[in-house]
C-alpha cells in the first residue's frame, strides 16, 4: 500500500498531552478527538490535514500517557502513516494495535519540513521525500509484529485464536 500526501513535521518528545490534551478525554469518539489533535503545539493541523498526509517527528514520539486516544486521533484526522526517529513504547504498541502505520526512520524524519510532498510504501518501508528528491529506508518490523499486522491486528488475531479455543480461560489463582 502506498501513502501519498503532505508532510507535517515536528521535533523530539512530542507527548500524548500534545497529541490530544487530557481535557478532551471525556470522549472516545475518534472524529471528535481528531478535531483537537495536536492543537496545543500546532493549531493549523486539525483543520489542514488531508487523508494520506504523513506525520514526521523526531525522537520519542508519543511519550507520556498510555491513552489510545492519541493514535486514534491521528488516524481519524486522516494521517496515513507516522514516521519518527523513534517512538515511545506504549504509543508504538497502540498504533500497531489499532492499525495506524508507524515507521522508524531517523533520516527521513529529521530532514522533513511541513508542506513537503511525501510518498511511503508500507510494504517495503521505502520513504520518498518528493520535494527534496531523497529516498530513505525504514527499519523493518520484527517477524513477531509482522505476523500481528498480517493477521489484521491484535484484536482480529486474538478473535480467531479464541474461536479456535486456543486460550485456557479458566485460570485460577486469585
Amino acid at each position: 500500500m502506498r501513502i501519498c500526501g503532505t508532510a507535517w513535521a515536528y521535533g523530539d518528545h512530542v507527548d500524548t498531552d500534545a497529541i490530544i490534551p487530557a481535557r478532551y478525554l471525556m470522549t472516545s469518539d475518534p472524529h471528535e478527538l481528531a478535531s483537537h489533535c495536536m492543537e496545543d503545539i500546532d493549531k493549523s493541523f486539525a483543520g489542514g490535514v488531508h487523508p494520506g498526509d504523513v506525520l514526521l517527528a523526531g525522537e520519542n514520539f508519543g511519550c507520556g500517557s498510555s491513552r489510545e486516544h492519541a493514535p486514534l486521533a491521528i488516524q481519524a484526522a486522516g494521517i496515513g502513516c507516522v514516521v519518527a526517529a523513534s517512538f515511545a513504547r506504549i504509543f508504538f504498541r497502540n498504533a500497531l494495535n489499532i492499525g495506524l502505520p508507524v515507521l522508524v526512520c531517523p533520516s527521513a524524519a529529521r530532514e522533513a519540513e511541513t508542506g513537503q510532498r511525501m510518498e511511503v510504501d508500507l510494504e517495503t518501508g521505502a520513504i520518498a521525500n518528493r520535494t527534496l528528491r531523497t529516498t530513505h529506508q525504514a527499519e523493518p518490523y520484527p517477524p513477531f509484529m509482522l505476523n500481528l499486522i498480517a493477521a489484521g491486528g491484535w484484536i482480529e488475531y486474538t478473535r480467531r485464536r479464541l474461536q479456535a479455543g486456543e486460550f485456557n480461560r479458566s485460570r485460577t489463582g486469585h
Partner: protein
Amino acid sequence: MKQTLAEKLIASHAVVNGRRLTPDERSTLGADRFVEVEVDLVLANDITAPIAMREFAKLGVASVFDPRAVVFVADHFTPNKDIASAEHCALMRRFAVEQGLTHYYDVGRAGIEHVLLPEEGLVAPGDVVVGADSHTCTYGALGAFATGMGSTDIAVAMATGIVWMRVPRTIRVEFTGERQRWVGGKDLILRAIGELGVDGARYQALEFAGAVIDALPISGRFTMANMAIEAGAKAGLFCVDRITDSYLEGRTHRDRPGGELRADPDAVYESTLHLDVSDLDPQVALPHLPENVRSVGEVGEVSIDQVVIGSCTNGRLEDLREAAAILRGRRVHPGVRCIVLPGSQRVMLEATREGLIETFVLAGAAVSTPTCGPCLGGHMGVLASGERAVSTTNRNFRGRMGHPQSEVYLSGPAVAAASAVAGRIASPEEVLS
C-alpha cells in the same frame, strides 16, 4: 544463564502453546525475545476502560477471563466532573456489574489506582500486572513486573489473561552515599531521570539498587517505580526484601512465589548508572520535561500560583506527613492556592486521625477527595494562561495541568509545601529557619 529481575519475572509467566515454560526454558529466556505472558492482574480506569470495553466486545467472548483479576478504578475525572465523564463512568460501572468484577472501585470507596491497588493487597511480589495507565509501573516497588499498555492490549488481556511482550534489557541504577534530610524517593528518581533523559530507558527496564535503596521506605519506592515511565522505561523494579515483606504483612492474601525475587549477581545489564546522593539536595524538574532537573537552590526566583500535593506519585500517608511537617503552624502564601489530595480513602482516614488534615486546613490549603484530576489538567485545580504550579505529580509537559501557556515544576512533598508557604520555589530549610 544469569538473569535480571525483569527476565526472571517475565520468564515465570511466559507461555508457549498454552503451557508455562519448563524450568530450563525459563532460565534461558533473555532480553529481546518476544513472548506471550499470562498476567495476574489487569487494570483500567474511567478514561481507558471505555475504549477497552469497546474492543473487548469485538472479541466474541461473553465474559472476562477471571472476574477477580480484572480491576476497574474510577479515579481520573471523578467525582464526575461533567456529563460526558459521568457517562463514561456509568458505562464502566455497568460493565463491572454485568461481569461481576470483584474489584470495581468507585467514589467514596476508592482512591487513585496506583495508591489503591497495593494498599488493598491486590499486587504481590512476582506478579505480572498490566494496566491501561502508563503509571502502572508503580507496582515494580513490590517486585512485580508491572507495565502500562493501551486499551486494545488491555481488552485482549481482559478476555484471555494474555499479553505479548518483548523481554526488555535492563539499566541498573545504583544509589550510594548518605541520603540528606528532605531528600526522598522523588528526589532520587528525578535525579536519575535528569541523568537518563526522558527516553534514556525507552523499551528497557530500570532496576534500582544500592545501599540507599536497601534502606528506602516502601512509599519512596512506589514514588520511584511510578516515574520509571518518565525515562521511557517499561518497568521500574525493586528486589523483594524485609521492607517489602513488612508492607505486605496483613495486606496480601496471596502466597509469595518460591525462590528469591532478585536479579542474579552477575546478570547482564545494558548499562549501569551510579549516583552518589551524599551531596544531593531536593530536586525540581523545570518545564516542560521531567528531565530538566536542578537542585532546588539552583532554580532561582520563581513565583508560583498553585501547589498540588498528592497523586499516584506522592499521595501516600508518608508524603502527607512530610508536607504537614512544613505546613504545621505556618500559612500558605496569600498568592498561592495549595491543594492537597490524599491518594485513597484509607490515606484520607489515616491523615485525619493523625491530624494532618487539620494542619492543612489551618494552613489555608484545600483538601480534596482522592482524584487524579489536577495532575492531567482534568479538574480540581486547572491552571490559567501564564500561571505556574509546583506539583508533586509526575509530568510537566506543556499544557499538562491546564492552559498551554501555564508551567509545571515537579518536586517532592517537602519542596512543594515549602514553596506554598514562600510563594515561590523554596527549599524546606529556607522556610523552617
